[in-house]
């Protein structure tokens, strides 16, 4: 009796052990071990308790086989059991048909139940996967929409868009590059996020993971991203292309306005794809047009350079709503930028206007004050311009203003600002310039104007077109307001006019001097 118990326990232990170690192996070996363990368990029990028990214990083998290999497993296990039992004479006389039918019924029922469960489970997981994916896309779309609405700065918009595509919190592609269409129809690289090589990708990603960045962090970390992807961006910004017959694939994308996946072994007929592959070590590549009001304003290129995960059309479909939203945001930001530029630019001369000067002067003034630097202002007026306009008409007068603007732009430095104050009056802001340097600039302008061949200038009272210039400078020693600075320059201009025009006059505290 004791031996029976010990043997039974050992048998049970063996079943458990095999059930444990089956997980060490691959899927099929795992199933094989499960079936083998039930066979072993059954045979040992048959030995301990007698052959008769094999009849019912075989159901365990049928169960394991049916669960492991469905109907195939069920039929093979049933067939083999019956053959073996028949040869060893275990089948009970007169009950053969019932036993065979019971085995078959049991196996078929178990296989059917587990097949049904497996099918339902797979259907459920497919549905669940779709649900999770859509939830994630919705989450990304929500986060990105909020971020896109927060700015009208194009660079920032592009950064948000590409971050949402490349960050794991976003759509999780390894790399994204954006090319925007210029007014002449060519496409130029604007921004890219991602590594240049697989090794760089691993390093950047490890850094991201260690720091536990979130999508919001990524969006806020624009500068860091640009530094990280500096080399990639250098390459992208110098990459431009024209969609022509030499690039049939890109032509198709722009024409059809549909995303396209270029597989690793495709695209050899397309010159631009070949250049992209060479420059960015691209293998599989997805290209998505950015559409705004039915017009392609750019092309987004994505690839999985690091993990080489294949990109499918359903992945690309998730980008389309983001791309469309971004395209609209880019167009709005471009229009805003244009409007803003128009608001601060003089329509005739292309110089800054008075609105710009009113906005810029306080900044320059405060900056000069806090940095203990000087700020000089030149107020310039065309001499006897009314006479010129009355004689030759406003059209020619406008031409003089345009030519004068060109002279002013040429003479002043890159840090200086030339503004058309109104009519024939101009203001030039010279940050960090002392009064003598500002006087020099003024003198240079005066001479350049005097020596320029303006149209019909000989009809002027002095036989040429000239300017008078008033100069004032703000220093630490002469505490003054913005208004008083302009006022002093204006007074100096009047002095210049008063002393015969065509001259530069400076206003110094208590002293007016030429």
């Amino acid at each position, binding site marked *: 009796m004791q031996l029976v118990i010990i043997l039974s326990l050992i048998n049970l232990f063996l*079943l*458990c052990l095999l*059930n*444990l*170690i089956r*997980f*060490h192996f*691959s*899927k099929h070996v*795992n*199933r094989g071990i*499960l079936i083998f363990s039930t066979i072993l368990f059954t045979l040992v029990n048959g030995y301990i308790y007698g052959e008769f028990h094999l009849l*019912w214990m075989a*159901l*365990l083998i049928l*169960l394991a086989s049916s*669960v*492991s290999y469905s109907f195939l497993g069920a039929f093979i296990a049933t067939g083999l059991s019956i053959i073996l039992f028949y040869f060893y004479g275990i089948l009970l006389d007169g009950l053969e048909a019932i036993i065979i039918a019971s085995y078959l019924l049991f196996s078929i029922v178990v296989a059917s139940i587990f097949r049904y469960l*497996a099918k339902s*489970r797979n259907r459920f*997981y497919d549905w669940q*996967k779709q649900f*999770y*994916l859509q*939830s*994630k896309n919705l*989450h990304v779309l*929500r986060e990105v929409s909020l971020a896109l609405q927060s700015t009208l700065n194009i660079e920032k918009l592009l950064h948000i868009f590409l971050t949402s595509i490349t*960050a*794991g*919190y976003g759509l*999780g592609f390894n790399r994204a590059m954006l090319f925007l269409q210029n007014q002449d129809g060519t496409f130029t690289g604007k921004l890219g996020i991602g590594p240049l090589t*697989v090794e760089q990708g*691993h390093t950047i*990603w*490890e850094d*991201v*993971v*260690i720091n*536990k*960045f*979130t*999508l919001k962090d990524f969006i806020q970390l624009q500068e860091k991203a640009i530094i990280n992807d500096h080399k990639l961006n250098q390459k992208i910004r110098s990459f431009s292309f024209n969609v022509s017959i030499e690039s049939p694939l890109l032509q198709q994308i722009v024409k059809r306005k549909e995303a396209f996946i270029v597989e690793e072994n495709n695209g050899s007929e397309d010159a631009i794809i070949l250049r992209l592959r060479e420059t960015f070590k691209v293998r599989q590549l997805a290209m998505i047009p950015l559409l705004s009001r039915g017009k392609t304003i750019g092309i987004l290129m994505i690839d999985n350079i*690091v*993990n080489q995960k294949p990109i499918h059309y359903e992945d690309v479909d998730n980008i389309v709503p983001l791309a469309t939203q971004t395209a609209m945001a880019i167009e709005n930001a471009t229009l805003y930028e244009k409007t803003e530029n128009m608001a601060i630019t003089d329509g005739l001369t292309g110089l800054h206007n008075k609105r710009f000067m009113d906005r810029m002067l306080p900044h320059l003034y405060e900056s000069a004050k806090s940095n203990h630097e000087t700020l000089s202002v030149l107020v310039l007026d065309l001499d006897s311009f009314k006479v010129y306009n009355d004689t030759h008409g406003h059209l020619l007068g406008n031409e003089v203003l345009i030519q004068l603007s060109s002279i002013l732009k040429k003479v002043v430095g890159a840090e200086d600002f030339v503004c058309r104050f109104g009519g024939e009056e101009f203001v030039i802001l010279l940050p960090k310039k002392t009064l003598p340097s500002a006087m020099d600039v003024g003198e240079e302008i005066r001479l350049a104007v005097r020596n320029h061949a303006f149209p019909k200038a000989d009809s002027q009272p002095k036989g040429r077109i000239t300017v008078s210039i008033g100069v004032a400078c703000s220093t630490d020693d002469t505490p003054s307001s913005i208004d008083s600075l302009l006022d002093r320059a204006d007074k100096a201009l009047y002095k210049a006019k008063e002393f015969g025009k065509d001259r530069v006059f400076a206003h110094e505290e208590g002293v007016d001097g030429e």
Partner: protein
Amino acid sequence: MINFMISTAVILFLLAIGILFSSRPFMYGILRWKTERKLKKFHANLKDVHFSFEEITYFVPLPNRTPLLAEASMENIVTEPDFASFIFPEIKGLKIYVRKNKLEQLIAYISIDHFRLPYIDKLLYEKKINEQEYLEMSGYILLHPNTKKAFIEEIYRQMRVNTGNDSQ
């Protein structure tokens, strides 16, 4: 005969139940053994394997003003492993719930397909492990108590961020 059939059914049922319920812990035990052995082989420690919260799928925007979520403490956030099949279990992911006063809401999910670990990715890229081993290692790490704790803390942080109640 009836007694015999009943006892047969009971024993078979018990054995089947035993196999069913032992499968998941057995599988996790083997994954643990295999992962730790692999890490040892590469002179690495579980602490060296960093993971990202990036791939969490949120089903609700966080922070959220729904009373159940707004008033939840860290103890109310629970994780539940997501397995497919009992006899041949596969780790599918980790579900994160808020459970309080018999109320429950699924707030986030991390799928095993998206649970990528840079260190193991590197091993895969260098062909030191294969895809199957990658899945086994990431599965073990995903269900590791420290990982679960980290996810709970992250979710709690997301729930409390910008609410003026950031302290734990």
